[in-house]
C-alpha cells in the first residue's frame, strides 16, 4: 500500500491531535479567502460608485435619443446605441450557426484523433488572441479584399471571428456534458447519427450553448480596439445603415468623451458606461432566463 496519508504530528512515537494548530490554519485559510473576495468586491463597488455618481446626473431620455454634440447639454448616444445593437444582433445571427455546427463536428463527428485535439487546442489558443489582431485581419479581409468598406457588416464579421472560438468551446463543453446514455438510447431506438444529434444531443445541450452565445455577444458589445481598426467612426449623428455609410458604437463614444479635457464630457462618458453596464446586465439576465427555460424539461 503506497497510499498517501495525512502526516500526523508525531512526537516521540506518539500521535498528537494538535487540534489548536489545525483549527488555526483552517481559520487563517478562511480569512485569506474572505480577504480575496472582499478586495474584489470593494474594487467593484468603488468602480460602480464612481461611474454612477458621475454619470447618473447626465442620464435622461434625451441622452438616449439624441446624437452626439460638442455641446454637452444636448449630447446623446442614440447613433452609438443603434450601432451597438445592429452589430451585436448580426454577430449573434452569424456566430450561432457556424459556432454550433463547428462544435457538433468536433464533438460528435470526429473521434478523438490527433487532428481533432490539434484543432481544439488551436481554437482554445485563438480565444486568447488580443482583439486588436482580429481588427487587423478584419481590415484586410472584410474591408479591403471583400470590399465591404467601413460598414456595420465589416464590423459584425470581424467580431464574429473574434467570438467564434468562445462560442465553439462553450458549445463543445455543453455537448460533452450530455450523458452517453442519451446517445445510446437514441441509437437503440434506431436513430441515425443526424437524428441522434438533432433530437437527443442538441436539445439537451441547448441551455449551455445559448448561454455561451449570449455571453459571447456581451463581450462583442464591449469591444473597441478591433472596431477602430475596421473603420468605426467616432462622431456619427445619423442612424448607421448595415451595408453603407459610417457607424459608431458605445465604447468608442465613451473613449472620445473620457479623453476630452472638459470635465463635463467625463460625466457624459460615465453616463454612457452606465448604459453599457445595463446592456451587459440585460444580456446576462437573458442568458440566465434562457438557461432556466430550456433546461426546465430536461431530466435524466
Amino acid at each position, binding site marked *: 500500500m503506497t497510499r498517501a496519508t495525512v502526516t500526523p504530528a508525531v512526537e516521540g512515537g506518539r500521535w498528537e491531535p494538535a487540534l489548536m494548530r489545525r483549527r488555526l490554519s483552517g481559520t487563517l485559510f478562511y480569512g485569506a479567502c474572505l480577504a480575496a473576495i472582499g478586495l474584489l468586491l470593494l474594487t467593484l463597488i468603488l468602480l460602480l460608485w464612481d461611474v454612477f455618481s458621475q454619470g447618473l446626473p447626465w442620464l435622461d431620455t434625451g441622452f438616449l435619443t439624441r446624437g452626439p454634440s460638442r455641446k454637452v447639454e444636448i449630447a446623446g448616444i442614440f447613433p452609438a446605441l443603434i450601432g451597438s445593437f445592429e452589430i451585436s444582433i448580426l454577430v449573434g445571427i452569424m456566430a450561432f450557426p457556424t459556432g454550433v455546427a463547428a462544435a457538433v463536428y468536433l464533438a460528435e463527428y470526429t473521434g478523438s484523433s490527433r487532428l481533432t485535439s490539434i484543432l481544439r487546442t488551436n481554437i482554445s489558443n485563438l480565444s486568447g488572441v488580443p482583439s486588436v489582431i482580429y481588427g487587423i485581419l478584419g481590415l484586410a479581409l472584410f474591408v479591403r479584399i471583400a470590399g465591404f468598406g467601413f460598414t456595420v457588416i465589416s464590423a459584425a464579421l470581424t467580431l464574429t471571428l473574434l467570438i467564434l472560438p468562445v462560442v465553439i468551446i462553450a458549445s463543445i463543453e455543453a455537448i460533452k456534458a450530455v450523458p452517453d446514455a442519451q446517445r445510446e438510447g437514441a441509437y437503440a431506438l434506431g436513430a441515425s447519427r443526424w437524428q441522434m444529434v438533432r433530437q437527443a444531443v442538441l436539445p439537451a445541450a441547448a441551455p449551455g450553448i445559448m448561454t455561451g452565445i449570449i455571453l459571447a455577444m456581451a463581450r462583442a458589445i464591449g469591444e473597441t480596439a478591433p472596431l477602430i481598426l475596421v473603420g468605426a467612426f*467616432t*462622431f456619427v*449623428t445619423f442612424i448607421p445603415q448595415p451595408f453603407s455609410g459610417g457607424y459608431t458604437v458605445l465604447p468608442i463614444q465613451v473613449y472620445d468623451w473620457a479623453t476630452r479635457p472638459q470635465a463635463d464630457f467625463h460625466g457624459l462618458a460615465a453616463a454612457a458606461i452606465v448604459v453599457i453596464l445595463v446592456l451587459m446586465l440585460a444580456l446576462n439576465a437573458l442568458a440566465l432566463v434562457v438557461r432556466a427555460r430550456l433546461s426546465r424539461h430536461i431530466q435524466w
Partner: protein
Amino acid sequence: MSITNPKRLVTLTLVAAFAIAACTSGGDATNAPATGGASASPAVSDAPTLSGTITIDGSSTVFPITQAVAEDFQIANPGVQVPVAFSGTGGGFKKFCKGETDLNDASRPIKEADEGEGLACTAAGIEWIQLQVAIDGLTVVVNPANDFATCLSIAELATIYGPDSPEELLWSQVRAGFPAEKVERYMPGADSGTFDYFTEEINGETDAATQFATQSEDDNTLVTGVAGSTYAIGFFGYAYFVENTDKLSALEIDAGEGGGCVAPTDATINDNSYAPLSRPLFIYPDVTKAKTRPEFKAFVDFYLENATALSAEVGYVALPEALLQDQKDAWAAAVGG
C-alpha cells in the same frame, strides 16, 4: 425528455434582427441630425440641396474642431452625412492615401517620403492640399506646489526629455539651485503627433526621447499624474491646461533667441511668440474629390469659414486673419473656384 423548441428562439432572434434592420433602413430622409435638424441656414438656402457622405479620419488633436464643423455643417445641410473618426495622424494618412477617406486631420505635416503617407498618395494618384485651420500651444506643466521652476530653456527641457537623460534625474541637475529631488516625467504616447512634434522641436529628432517617462495616450492621465506629485513635469495640448488651471501651473519657455521667457496664452500662441512649441493643426482634403463632389467642396469652404469661431470654442487658438485668408486662397486656387 422533452424541451421547448429551440427553433422558436432562433426565429425570435431573427424577427428581432429584421425589425431593427427595417427601422434603421427607413431611408435617408429620417437621417437628419437629432439636434435641431429643421433649422435651415440662410447661408445655403440659395444653393442646390447637397447630399452624400463625407468620411474623415486622422489626428485626435484636430478631432474636436472637425467634429464641431461637421456638427454645424450637417445641421445646415441635412442631406449630407459627415462621420468623423480619430485613428491618429499617421493611421489616418494610411487610409487617406488609399482613397478610403475624403479628408485627413493632421497635427503635423504629411511625411512626403514615407511609404505609408506621401509615397502611397502619389502612387494612388491622390492629390492633396495642406490647409492650416488652428494653432495649438504645447504646454509644459508642473505641480502648483513647485515654487522653484517658472521658466525653462530648450536645453533644460532637452536635459529632462532627451534620449540620453538618466533614470535618476534630479531637479538640481536640470539647473543649479533647484532642489535635489527626482524629476517625475510624464509625456504623451509615442503614437501621438504631440510626441512627434515635441521631440522634433526639443530633442532635434522625431521620436528621440527618454525612456524613463510615464507615457499615456490619454492626456487626462498626464494631468492627474502631474497634479498628484510635487516634483512632476509633463506636457500636452493647451486645451488640457486651460481646463485644469486649478491643478497645474504652466511653465514659461525661453527659446534662447533673445525673446526671454514666454508663457503660453491665447495671444502668445496666436502671434507665434510662444516658440517653438506653438504648433499648426492641419486638414488635408482630397482635391480631386472636391472638384467632382459639390458637397465635399462646400464642406471645406464651410470649414475655413467657421474655423476661427469653432476652434476657439473647443479650446484651441484661432489663426491670425491673414494666415486664414492664405488658406482660403490656396483652397480656392486648388479647386478652381
